[in-house]
């Protein structure tokens, strides 16, 4: 088990990589927690939950609404949960997002933590302090920034993940290495088959390194003024591709990274060899490099991203492997990108 302490503006978080769910109670205050989880996780792992009331929500992005939040508030009121309660979200990114928002707003904020059960949640959704629900057709339109007290990353649960979920996590791991850590990128290249097979030792290192990278970036910039935008590498295109084609998030991010790398190469920021290395790694991890899609629709979706400001889009470009820059790219330039 590897442990990492991160200090953010809204408090400090303890990240425990490789700590199993059954050890959750070691990290809780003495009072029983209130657990928020989804049906799937509940079905498979309820026997490992510590004693405490369990609130179950449905699964899928469509559950991430203010209605769900309101329903949880109701249940908390019925339980007479007061300000001294502790809420634990056990699940993937959606459970973490909802739990974070509920715990940050119920009684103006109560203690909370996560047990991240998917690779994506472990390397991404559980850290950074962002939470929120979808609204008016936009993702995470309503939310707050607030760090959980702790995050457990149980690696024993990962093998049961569906292929799609595994891909999502791996895509984020590649992203972290590509934007911030050349050594990690090389390690990934050497151990791609083991990573794909979710080898315990390899995954523990990759999750830990990802958390170090993400939390370092987040600490620099808790409010997405600049530094945090780096984490959007591959996501600007990725979200648009996801929206238009409906491919799973991890695949969309992979395609987005390929496009962003091409843009980086055209601007002379990486070599053709480096671009190839990124593509090879993604391919080794079973991630797609391209997809045919309606270019006009994707560009239109880009303009509608909630992070959009005016006629240009904030774009993350690689600046050598293991480094990146954030720059404004006019939508017009994106239109000329081959393959887009």
């Amino acid at each position, binding site marked *: 088990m590897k442990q990492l302490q991160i200090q953010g503006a809204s408090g400090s978080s303890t990240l425990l990589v490789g700590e199993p769910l059954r050890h959750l109670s070691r990290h809780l205050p003495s009072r029983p927690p209130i657990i928020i989880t989804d049906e799937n996780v509940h079905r498979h792992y309820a026997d490992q939950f510590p004693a405490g009331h369990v609130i179950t929500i449905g699964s899928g992005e469509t559950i991430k609404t203010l209605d769900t939040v309101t329903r949880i508030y109701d249940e908390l*009121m019925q339980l007479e949960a007061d300000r*001294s309660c502790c809420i634990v979200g056990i699940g993937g990114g959606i459970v973490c997002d909802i739990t974070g*928002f509920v715990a940050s707003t119920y009684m103006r904020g109560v203690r909370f933590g996560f047990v991240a059960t998917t690779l994506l949640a472990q390397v991404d959704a559980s850290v950074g302090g962002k939470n929120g629900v979808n609204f*008016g057709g936009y993702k995470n*339109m309503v939310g707050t*920034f607030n760090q959980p007290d702790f995050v457990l990353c149980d690696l024993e649960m990962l093998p049961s993940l569906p292929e799609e979920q595994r891909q999502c996590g791996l895509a984020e791991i590649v992203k972290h290495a590509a934007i911030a850590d050349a050594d990690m990128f090389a390690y990934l290249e050497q151990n791609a088959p083991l990573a794909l097979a979710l080898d315990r030792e390899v995954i523990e290192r990759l999750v830990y390194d990802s958390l170090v990278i993400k939390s370092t970036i987040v600490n620099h910039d808790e409010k997405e003024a600049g530094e945090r935008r780096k984490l959007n590498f591959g996501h600007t295109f990725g979200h648009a591709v996801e929206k238009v084609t409906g491919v799973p998030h991890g695949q969309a991010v992979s395609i987005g990274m390929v496009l962003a790398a091409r843009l980086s190469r055209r601007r002379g920021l990486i070599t053709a060899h480096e671009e190839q290395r990124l593509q090879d790694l993604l391919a080794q991890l079973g991630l797609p490099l391209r997809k045919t899609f309606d270019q006009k629709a994707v560009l239109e979706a880009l303009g509608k991203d*909630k992070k959009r400001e005016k006629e240009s889009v904030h774009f993350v470009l690689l600046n050598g492997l293991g480094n990146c820059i954030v720059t404004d790219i006019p939508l017009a330039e994106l239109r000329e990108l081959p393959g887009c």
Partner: protein
Amino acid sequence: MDRPNIVLTGFMGTGKTTVGKKLAQQLDYAFVDTDELIQERAGKTVPEIFQEMGEVAFREMEGAVARELADRQGVVISTGGRLMLDPGNAAALSRTGRVFCLVATPEEILDRVSRDTTHERPLLAVPDPMERIVELMQQRQEDYGQFPQMVTSEKTPDAVTNNLIGLFQANPDQRVSITGAGKHYEYIVGGGLLPFVKNLAGIAGPVAIITDTNTGPLYAQSCGPVDAVIQVPPGQQHKTLTMVQSICEQLIEKGFERNGTIIGLGGSVISGLAGFVAAVYMRGVDLVHCPTSLLAMVDTSIGGKAGINLPQGKNLVGAFKQPTAVIADVATLQSLSPEEFSSGMAEVIKHSLIDDAALFAQIEGGSWAREAGTLVPPLPDLQALVAQAIQVKIRIVQEDPFDRGRRNLLNLGHTFAHAIEQVCEHTIRHGEAVAMGLVAAASLSARLGHCAPELQERLKPVLVDAGLPVRIPAHIDLFRVYEAMRRDKKAASGRIRFILLRAIGDVFVSDTVEREQVMETLENLKA
């Protein structure tokens, strides 16, 4: 800030330098002309800088000078014609200074510029300077329009100077600096501040006003042009998640983005709604409180709490959201009903009981009840009252921004008040419930031997004078009141937390009060 800067902007030839120097002399301020400062530092004239280094370099120098001057005080700043048209510069200088835009007719400008031989005017080096002036003025009209205007046409520089000093000193704002959760902002109290709100708060980006249908028609326009005005129905019953949702929908519809600022213009319901929306919309946008009720001024707008009601109780959901500024225009209190004014007085009296015995004595000696249609007391007295009452809360919240300790003290009387309000289903005003709660807290404290019984006898007439009740209405079910207190979010594991009094200005927290003593106290206060 004792000596806020005065920033003069406006078109060339409107007299910024001439008037600025006179102002500085009369106010005993320093005088800085930004163009001259830049020329001095660069060792070149402005036209030379434009020619040799380019306009971008010049604008960068202006930006550096603006940031530097914003950190000083007691300076009259005459700005280059376009310096204040940069939102960043305007925001920086507005933060620590009052901005005035001098205006004149094109004819007068041409006349003044032609007579002034000390400056080169590269922009006017054209065959028809008059046409050029009119054209430039039209281009910049909208940008200059964001600042309060001072007409200089047909006035001597001395007359303009005296007018400005009049404006500046007529109601010197009182400013209190607040540091909350690592953020620093100012609470500004004054009469007639609303037209200056964007300058005072240093707002640069898009603005959305959230207000209610009573306050909006009265004051939204006073705040100058904004990108959206969202009006909600007035009243506690609308401080709900459904309303939050509706406001967010309207913001999305107006294309309001993350770089925007929400102004909460209204009473405490608006403070809560606007605060919560600003906390969660796109995970947070900037917030400026413009409280228009006494209650919101002395209580809700301070401390960064934003609460939303659930069917089960008040403020059960919420967030901590520090504003970038609080601008309290006491002139808006003129539109308050006597009941609303009294409601605010309940919080003022509460603050004095918590930590300001002198303020209590002052209230005791004055007459604060409002008669219908007239404003008693006059504006300067109100401003002084608000300025003093906010200090108590500011002191306490600064020590405890996230409500984990000392801040509990602000709940004096509120454990009772929230429960009474809830049992009455909010048919009585918050201030009325607080007044009952204050008497209950004093009475309970005396019953437990913490303070003299005389304290509540001294408190009651003060509340009555302010138009507030001191007894609990007979129809209220006291058992339900007790149950509601137990469910309050301040209660930890079923133990109710009370704030008790040792003396006026000296309070403490206790969670060891027995049910019986609480019930007996309540019984005794029943009308």
